[in-house]
């Protein structure tokens, strides 16, 4: 009895420690010690130098040839001059950046930087000439759902799935949109992160983008599951799982209960 309790305590303790460790910032986020005293742009410059310049180059000029850094990463990345607040804010708030390897796919992570730190880095990179686009302010409330459905299906559903549940394209995993804010959807559409196409205002106007965001948020966050449990809103794969693992099991159990063996 006591040994079992001890084992349980050890397991729970290990999980707690692992959980806490996971919640801590990764090692490798360099911050200046006197953060609070620094003005925003200076803080941004220092954070950039410590965390981004290895791949994105000094002063945001990019790093063409892979350069091994003191942390051991092979730094290589595009220039950030002219990308504007729109792009920096997007990549930092989603946790897409920083990447641990230049060729890995960015995935949504808990942002490593505080809100002030992000604003600082956005301010700094946006200040590098030439000027770039600001953080968009979409108004999905002004959009139209039916128009949003048509546009989303035409431009987005091929990768993101018609109900915004994500999917696959050869070379990348495509994320579902349930964790994306309206601003982030607008940013992603304009920025075209990783392998995603880049939809400018000429391609999709701001008004059309409002409709797309309205539709995407509805589909991803408040889907109309009138039929009951939505099981993921991606169609036949989970339906087949329910057929076998719920219905199939239930029917076999039913048969076992009903078809009892007789006396002899």
């Amino acid at each position, binding site marked *: 009895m006591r040994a079992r309790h001890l084992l349980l305590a050890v397991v729970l303790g290990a999980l707690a420690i692992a959980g806490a460790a996971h919640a801590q910032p990764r090692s490798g986020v360099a911050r200046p010690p006197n953060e609070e005293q620094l003005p925003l742009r200076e803080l941004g410059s220092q954070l950039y130098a410590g965390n981004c310049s290895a791949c994105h180059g000094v002063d945001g000029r990019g790093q063409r040839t892979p350069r091994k850094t003191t942390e051991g990463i092979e730094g290589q990345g595009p220039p950030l001059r002219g990308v504007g607040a729109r792009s920096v804010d997007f990549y930092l708030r989603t946790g897409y950046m920083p990447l641990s390897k230049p060729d890995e796919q960015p995935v949504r992570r808990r942002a490593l930087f505080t809100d002030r730190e992000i604003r600082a880095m956005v301010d700094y990179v946006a200040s590098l000439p030439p000027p770039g686009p600001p953080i968009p302010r979409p108004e999905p409330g002004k959009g139209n*759902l*039916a128009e949003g459905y048509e546009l989303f299906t035409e431009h987005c559903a091929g990768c993101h799935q*018609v109900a915004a549940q994500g999917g696959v394209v050869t070379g990348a995993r495509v994320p579902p949109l349930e964790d994306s804010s309206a601003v982030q959807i607008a940013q992603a559409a304009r920025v075209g992160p990783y392998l995603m196409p880049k939809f400018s205002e000429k391609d999709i106007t701001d008004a059309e983008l409002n409709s797309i965001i309205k539709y995407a948020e509805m589909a991803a966050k408040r889907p109309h599951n009138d039929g009951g449990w939505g099981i993921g809103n991606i169609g036949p794969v989970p339906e087949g799982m329910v057929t076998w693992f719920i219905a199939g099991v239930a029917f076999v159990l039913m048969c076992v209960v*009903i078809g009892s063996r007789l006396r002899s």
Partner: protein
Amino acid sequence: MIRRALLWLDARTGAAPLVRKGLRYLFPDHWSFLLGEVALYAFIMLVATGIYLTLFFEPSFGETTYTGSYAPMQGLPMSEAYRSALELSFDVPSGLLMRQTHHWAANVFVAAIVLHMIRVFFTGAFRKPRELTWIIGLLMLFTTLLEGYLGYSMVDDLLSGIGLAIGYGVALSVPVIGANLALGIWDGPFPGSTVFESRMYVAHVFLLPILIATLLAGHLALVASRHHTQFRASKRATQRRIVGMPAFPAQTPRSLGLMLMTAALLFLLGGLVQINPIWQWGPYETYQATNGAQPDWYLGWLIGSLRLMPGFDLSIGDYVLVPNPFWGGALFPLVVLGVLGAWPWLERRFTGERGFNNVLDRPRDAPGRTAFGAAFFTWVALIFISGSADRADVFLGLDYESQIWFYRVAVIVVPLLVFFVTRKVCAELQASDAIEEAREAAEEEAKAEAVAA
């Protein structure tokens, strides 16, 4: 009163001797024999809910604009078929329940057939004199696959429309005659003329159900005529003697209960678990695509085989002998049908058995069949699983392209492994059985000697 009713009926139909005999028809008492019944009851549910749906569904590709109650589709152009399905889902009080129950029943129907088929195969129930029953069952399975495909394609939503395009591609890929076949079925190049919807409808609502019902009647008649097989459950159960439970009063309430429970479970699923939410997919347009478009589970083996094939069209000069989709979309299912259909005779070749078989094998007692069955099933199952490799990428983070390469190798290597391992396992189980028997016999002998001494 029952007496009077039966006599009245007998005078007019001559049915009393049949009823008398039928009441005491003996059923084997193992639960696995009920799996076929689950399939039967799922079929009855399909017909019942299906009739309801036909009273509301409009099988027409005619263009219309949506003005119903589902906001995100307001003002969108769509076919009457799709619109009527939306109406069934949102504006007819229990329409969505019936639609979903119907669809769940279809999924469960095929699953029950597969489970039933597995039981029949691994116990050798298909052997003489039941080969015909087996063939009819196989035909029912494949007819049902087509029936289900047409059923969910009639609704003209984005997911099923994409599935129809693939069906068209597979039809085109039949060597030499493919183009003619596809043009004939669709009445022109895809998406075909509006009459194609009517063809799907008539096939799904009339032709194929009649075919399935006729095959089913034949299947059940044969089962009754040759009688059920049985496990060697008691010493009295032999090739000549049936031991079991009479149809009345034992089996009938059990079967009725199973039928009602099947209905209950299907309605429960239909009410609580959403299936095929067509309003989330939107109407089909040939120039639109969506990620994650999958067929219903029972055609998942085909999307797997289509995805696994390496990219080549077998050609001689400018003539394309075998376009790519043929291998995965047509040849693969034909091979499966052919092997399973020929199996009773193939097995007889290997075992040399000529007699009637009424007693079932335990899988271990037929190592060759069990090993082959396990390997064949593994082959089909691996191809089936590979069909959802994209979802596995999304949920488990396994790179899609790597998975495809893995499966291309695995579908050849793993079934071979399974064959040999299964055969060994059967042999081991048989050996341990023999040891058990020898041990029991020795104990009996010892006991007898002790008594005599």
